[in-house]
Structure formats: C-alpha cells, structure tokens
C-alpha cells in the first residue's frame, strides 16, 4: 500500500489536500479530501452585537462576501422584526447580481476554467490566468478584467468597498443609488449580457469543441448521481436572493419544498475525524458515509444543483441556453463537469435580471429602511451564493447581542459530493496508471468544477 498526496489543492478558495491510498496492485483503496482549516465564526460571533454580523460574517469569505453579508442582514431583518423596504430589497438585489457576475467570471477565467480553456495537461506553470493572458491575448484578458470589475464596482457603489462592503442594516440598507449611478448600472448590465454571450461562445468553441472535455463530460470518471437543492421562484426557476428551497431526487422529482426557516427539519450535518469540514445530508435518508447511493442523503448545490432542482431559467436568453443544455445533457444532469456550462448560463441569467431591475425607478426613490421592531429572538436568512445555498441562523437576545449561531455554507453542502467526485476521478486515473503530478491534476479538475470555497466551508 502507498499514499499519494496533493497538497495544497489549488486554484480554488481556501485550504485543502487530497490523500490517495492505493492497494499493492496500484488501484485505489480510498481517497480523502481533507480540509485542515477552521476559524470558528459560529463560536466567536457569539457575544457580538448583532448589527455587526453582516460585516463579521462577510469575512468568512473574501471571494463571496456579498452573499454572506446579505444572508446575514436577512437573518437580522427577521430577528428584529423589520421587513426591508421595497427599495432596500431592490438595492440588495443589485449588489447580489453584480457579485454573481463577478464571482462566476472569476471561476471560469482564473480558477477552474483554465483547465478547460488551456487543457488539463498544459504545463503546470501555464495552467492559470497568466497562461490565459498569453494564449488568448491581452485584448480578451482586458475584457475579462473589465467585466469582473463591473461586478465589483456595483458592490462598491452601494457598500463603499468591493470586498467586504458595509451596507446592510436591519430593515434596509445604508445607501441608495443616484440616477447617474442607476444609469451606469444599466449600461454595465447591457455589457455583461453581451460578455456572457461571448463567454458562452468561447465555451462552446474551445471547451465543448475540445477532445478532452467532450470525452470527460460524459465519462463515468466525472459523473455522480445525487439529490439536488436550490432556491426557486414560484415557477420553479432558479432564484438568487429570495425564495423557497427545493430538493429534488435523481429523476428530478420534487422531494421537498420548504421555507429557509425550516431548514433544520431537512438538513443534518455529520462530522468525520479526518477533516474540519462537516458533511450535510438530507435528514430523511440520513448519512451513510461516502457512498454514492439513492439510500444516502447526499445532495449537490450550486449552478448544477440549481439547474437540476429547477425546470427552466427566468429570462429569455438564459432560457434559450438552458434548453440547449437540456437537449444536450438532459435534466437532471449528473455530469459534474456540466457545472461549468450551468455556471456560464447563470452569468447570462443574472445579467438579464440585473438589466431588468436597473430599468426600475424603485432603485432611486423611496425609503432606504424601515424602523426595527421588537427583537423576536431567532432569525434565519438564506440566499443563493455563486456556489449554492447559503443559510445563516442566529439567536439574538433582548440587548441585541448574539446568543447562538449556525451556518451552512454552499461548499459545506457539497462536501460529500466533492469527496465522492475526487474518489471517482482518482480511481479512474490510477486504473490508467496515471500517478504523476500533472496527471493527478485531472483529479483536481473534478473538484474545481464545483468552484469550491473551503475557507467558507469550514468557516
């Protein structure tokens, strides 16, 4: 028996390593994804003043501070009995959509995407954004950077800072948009719609058109059958800021549809000794360990989870792309690498939603916040972050101090699925006799599809 270690796993957020144990004949014995980090926000936020939670918890993740900030403020809206004004909700959505565009583009061009845009066997020194700049040229690279910046700029306009904004107050927000800023958002949204389409055509041309991806997409090495979870609107289309949670089975049939406040009736978390990351599962089925089986409560979240847990996209252009996806890969789709395609479809979906909202006068007129009511104790808030469903749950005492905190973060939901995907990829690579560092990158290709965020996942 021997052991192969990939440490650290790279081009993702946070820390992690993969330990692969092999049998004497070189085949896989078992592979583990291990997350070595824990900062323990759930503990050190206890005792803090509730109003600082949106800023404290945004530090769970500097890649996705906005969804933490928004899930947190939604939690406080409930705890303080202060439903936000219509204008505040619209402004929060603007911030969220800007963030979604930025984060998804970051993944495709900087993090997981280079494996596909350059090929997974590109030499290690080139398999990154610097390789993208060299291969695709500074002109396209500058367009990528420009559109990422649009997303960041929308967050900054409202929250003062693009990373870790200061914005949410129970019942509303601290700042609105001027008409000039609203017009700027609208023109950035138009440009993002165009760039989402450009990115999708790059995807169809360079990625779907490549031998590696065409084979890998449909190979069992990168396939995993699980349940799926995502937030939906009343038409069962993906919703990103507010909605009910929908859990579907491996055939796409709805298993549950619930309000975020009731999440504990549906989701449990298991603990394993070898990692600081917990393993959430569907409570009705329970936790059976790292086993791919319809008897096991493993589910996926994120762009592919949302695609599988919904029936169509809410905007015209994204819905067209969704139909092509469905025709090509089916729905539900269990091909892990389809995360990339669904992610880019969401860039288009969110850009269209952003453009539609930017046409509304509600952004520039009306009250920014409602007064807070009597503190009612517990609040639960959830949003869809780029990587999936994000749930915050606090108990607030009469003085406005935090008494208890529970957080379930997108990559935590995906913990079991990612671990299973890694083991499957490792099994296939070892079976082909592939053990060197570059070949082992194909194992990382499986986990990068999820756009994991392990700093978030252990929090």
């Amino acid at each position: 028996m021997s052991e192969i270690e990939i440490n650290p796993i790279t081009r993702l957020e946070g820390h992690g390593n993969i330990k692969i144990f092999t049998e004497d004949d070189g085949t896989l014995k078992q592979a583990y994804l291990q997350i070595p980090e824990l900062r323990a926000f759930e503990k050190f936020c206890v005792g803090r003043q509730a109003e600082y939670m949106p800023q404290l918890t945004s530090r769970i993740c500097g890649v996705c501070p906005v969804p933490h900030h928004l899930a947190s403020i939604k939690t406080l809206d409930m705890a303080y009995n202060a439903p936000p004004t219509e204008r505040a909700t619209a402004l929060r959505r603007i911030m969220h959509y800007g963030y979604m565009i930025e984060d998804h583009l970051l993944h495709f061009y900087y993090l997981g995407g280079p494996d596909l845009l350059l090929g997974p066997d590109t030499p290690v020194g080139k398999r990154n954004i610097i390789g993208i700049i060299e291969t695709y040229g500074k002109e396209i690279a500058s367009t990528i950077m420009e559109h990422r910046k649009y997303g960041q700029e929308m967050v900054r306009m409202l929250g003062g800072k693009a990373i870790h904004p200061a914005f949410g107050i129970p019942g509303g927000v601290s700042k609105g948009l001027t008409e000039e800023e609203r017009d700027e958002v609208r023109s950035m949204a138009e440009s993002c719609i165009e760039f989402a389409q450009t990115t999708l055509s790059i995807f169809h041309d360079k990625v779907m058109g490549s031998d590696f991806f065409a084979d890998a997409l449909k190979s069992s090495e990168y396939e995993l059958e699980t349940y799926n979870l995502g937030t939906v609107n009343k038409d069962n289309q993906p919703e990103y800021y507010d909605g009910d949670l929908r859990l579907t089975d491996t055939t796409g049939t709805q298993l549950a549809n619930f309000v975020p406040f009731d999440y504990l009736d549906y989701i449990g978390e298991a603990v394993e000794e070898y990692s600081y990351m917990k393993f959430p599962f569907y409570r009705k089925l329970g936790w059976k360990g790292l086993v791919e089986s319809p008897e096991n409560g493993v589910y996926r979240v994120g762009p592919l989870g949302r695609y599988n847990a919904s029936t169509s996209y809410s905007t015209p252009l994204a819905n067209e792309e969704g139909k092509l996806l469905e025709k090509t890969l089916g729905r539900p789709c269990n091909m892990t690498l389809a995360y990339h395609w669904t992610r880019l479809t969401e860039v288009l979906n969110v850009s269209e939603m952003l453009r539609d909202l930017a046409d509304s006068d509600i952004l520039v007129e009306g009250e920014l916040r409602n007064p807070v009511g009597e503190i009612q104790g517990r609040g639960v808030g959830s949003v869809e972050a780029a990587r999936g469903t994000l749930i915050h749950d606090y108990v607030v005492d009469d003085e406005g101090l935090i008494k208890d905190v529970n957080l379930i973060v997108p990559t935590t939901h995906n913990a079991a699925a990612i671990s299973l995907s890694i083991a499957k990829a490792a099994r296939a690579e070892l079976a082909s006799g592939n053990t060197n560092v570059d070949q082992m990158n194909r194992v990382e290709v499986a986990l990068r599809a999820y756009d994991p965020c392990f700093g978030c996942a252990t929090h």
Partner: protein
Amino acid sequence: MSKPKIAFYWAGSCGGCEVAVVDLGEKIYDVVDAFDIVFWPVAIDTKYDDIRNLEDGEIEVCFFNGCIRNEENEEIARLLRQKSKVMIAFGSCSHLGGIPGLGNLSSRDETLDYVYRKTPVFGNEDGTMPCTTCVKDGNTIDLPALRTEVSALDDVVDVDYYIPGCPPPLPVIEGAVAALMSGELPRKGAVLSTEKTVCDECDKEKRKKMVGKARRIYDDDVDTSLCLLEQGIPCMGPATRGGCKAACPSANMPCTGCMGPPPASQEQGSRMVTAITSLIAVENEREATAEEVAEALASLRDPVGFFYMYSLPTSFLKRRYNDE
C-alpha cells in the same frame, strides 16, 4: 537574467486579500512582467514541496495574508520566511490578527465543542470531533491541530513590512508595489499606508462636540452628512489609520477599524477612549468625567468585540486568559 521571484500566501484567511490582488486588473501585467510568481495557491498550481525545494532566500518578496490559527499556518509561515528575503504581512489578519483573532475570546476546547457538538448538527450523536490523527478504513490520517491562540504573523516570524486593511485598499497595494519595484522602501517594520487617520479622510461634517445621544446604527434616523461618532454612533475613525478614503463612512456606515491603529498609537481600544474623552472635553472646555465617557459609549454592549474587531491578538488584551 531570470526575473526576481515573488510569492502570495494565505494562512487563516478568507481569500479577500487574494481578490484584492486580482482587482489590480490590468496592473497585474506589470507585476507579471517584472516578477516571476512562484507561489499563489488561489491562482497557480505550485505545491508545498515545490517551495521546500527552493533555496533559502530565493523568493525576493513574500506577501503573506491570514492569521496564524493552526499548526499548518505556523509551519508554512516559517517555511516562507526561510525562503524569502522580504516578508510582508498583507491585510488585517496577518498584520493584527484580524476578525478570526476574536477566536481568542474562547479556549480551543470551547471552540471545537461549540462548532461540532453545540450547533444543531443532528448527525453527530456520538460527539465525533476532528482529530489530529485518526484511522479511517484502515488508513492513518493526520490533521493539523488548532493552536491554543490566534496570532498575527509577527508573533511567529520576523516581518519586514505591513500592508494594512481588510482587505488592503487598491491604492495602498499599488503604492506598496511601486515602492518595491523602485527599491525605495522605508525603514523596516513600517506600515505601508498613509500617516493620516480615517477621520482625516472622511468628508462628513465635524462639529467637534457630541450632537446626539449614544445609539446603535439601526436606531433613529441619522444625518448622513454629519460625523457619525458625534451623533453617538460608535465609529472607529479616530483610532484607525487611513488609506481607505473612509470607505465605510462613505457608505453611511461607521468605520470598524480594519486599517489598524494610527501612527504613534499602539492599539485601538485605548486610542478610541482617548478620542471620546477629548471630544467631550472640547465641548465642555474641561476634562471629561468617567461617567460622561461611559454615557457617550452607552450603546456599546460589546466593547471588546467592537474596539478590537480586527486586532485582539495584538492589543493590550491579547486574549481571554483561562484554564489552558
């Protein structure tokens, strides 16, 4: 001639410092032209063994973000210090301990117990906890231990410069990179940002007296054109170094202190009390009494968590002292 090597690393961090570097946008072309980035886990596939194989001092500059929360953070900090000529603490967590530094308000055991047993997990009836060594399916697996306390980077290795902020603002990063590229660096130990405070950079009108009662940000309407602190909202502006152009007050929210103490001030909590005291003294043309200071700060229910939101491990308090 090969280009000088630089490294970016994150320890106990959120990744915001990485995104701040990505937000340099096209300016990254200049960095890539001038330097060879040998280590940057968020963006480049270099592994720890590749760094172990470098010569000592082979890396020209290492930008290190994140606090020292576990044994792995400490080990990699020592490794990178050994391999780097210049070590820069980048961002609040490595500079001051950061928000994860609030972890010093409880013991390691309390922390692990809460996270894995007290939160409503429903999947851990036997009370399993992460273990530094375990046997799973016959395989022995090691896991880094949490340290008993959270530290800033200079608590474990020698640090040459500090770039403050959560995350560091773009102009501050650009200034620091320009200084590095020109070789015109200040004295060792310098914080590479302005000498001003956040108040100096804030454009809200200041009347140099308390104009409102102590309140919390969600209380009555606030005049967003006026100084928030003078209206009774706790704001860390006077106790915080600038460089951020008062980003949070510009969004009508109080400064929470991420840039750390201003020059000539060792820590933020005591500086903040001094600032409030002098605000009251100027208003009354006499020294402030303890009661008046307490009254001005009456809305603060968690002074430690507010004054030291980013700097507890490097403050006078440092940590809660208890059974460990």
